[in-house]
């Protein structure tokens, strides 16, 4: 199915957020996630199923003022 990952169209076979992170090799990365604008904690990721068209955001520490 197609989802929107960090603003770009992304084809995935993953059905939940934890699997998606593993699929893109982010399983061990220091990142936070949001699904359709709502925060999804690390503990919740494998219980959150993905639907076509979902908007997933994956963010990491970055320089800031």
């Amino acid at each position, binding site marked *: 199915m197609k989802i929107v990952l*960090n*603003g770009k169209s992304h084809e995935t076979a993953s059905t939940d957020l934890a699997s998606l992170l593993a699929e*893109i*090799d*982010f399983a061990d*990365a*220091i*990142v*936070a*996630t*949001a699904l359709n*604008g*709502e*925060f999804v*904690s*690390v503990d919740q990721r494998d219980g959150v199923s993905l639907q076509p068209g979902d908007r997933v*955001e*994956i*963010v*990491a*520490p*970055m*320089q*800031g*003022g």
Partner: protein
Amino acid sequence: MLEFYGKRFGSRLLLGTARYPSPAILADAVRASTCEIVTVSLRRESGDMRAGQDFWALMKELGTHILPNTAGCHSAREAVTTARMAREVFATSWIKLEVIGDSDTLQPDPFGLVEAARILCSEGFEVFPYMNDDLVVAEKLVEAGCRVLMPWGAPIGSGRGLNNPYALRTMRAHFPDITLVVDAGLGVPSHAAAAMELGYDAVLVNTAVAKAGDPVAMARAFAAAVEAGRLAFEADPIDALDMAVPSTPLLGKALL
């Protein structure tokens, strides 16, 4: 000593980590400033670059306290979600809360700011709100649970210094027990010293250091100015007068 939500610090300079020429210069500037708190953000991580992972490794190496921000958020909802993500990633309940209301001046949206502050304080966050210098907004933020307020000196990155010293002085007088930080708009160390002379507890600087010709030297200069300004405040400066008062005694002057 400077205190933020029960934690005490020796340095009254907070440093942003953005816009430096390189990670190495950023690290050297942080060390030169002797600051104990740096601000960071959250941004999209791309699969191949992994820039965030490298940046985080550098921050851990520096060992400073981390103050994550919600920079770039234009609504309370966006800022709250970003804060929740930051709490997980950085393992801190501190959040520098930014809700921007105007894209040209990056002026805070006071309505969205108060709304987000209420939600975050109720969820146990320790909120550092980036705000304008409006006393009523400040009151609402304190009512929401903020024990720190961070009024701007001038628009972010503008380097204009303290646009409204009167408002900043009034805020200091009005909130003697709140930790006050001038955040944004400082351009040169004398601006930081002026904020500290007003009795502010700390200043937060980013662009003025990062974009200086020599960021490491400028970091050192800001640290010295912050210390000088604080010492001056504690030494109780004289009041300004309109007319001259001779400093050399007239008594005993020769009649020539």
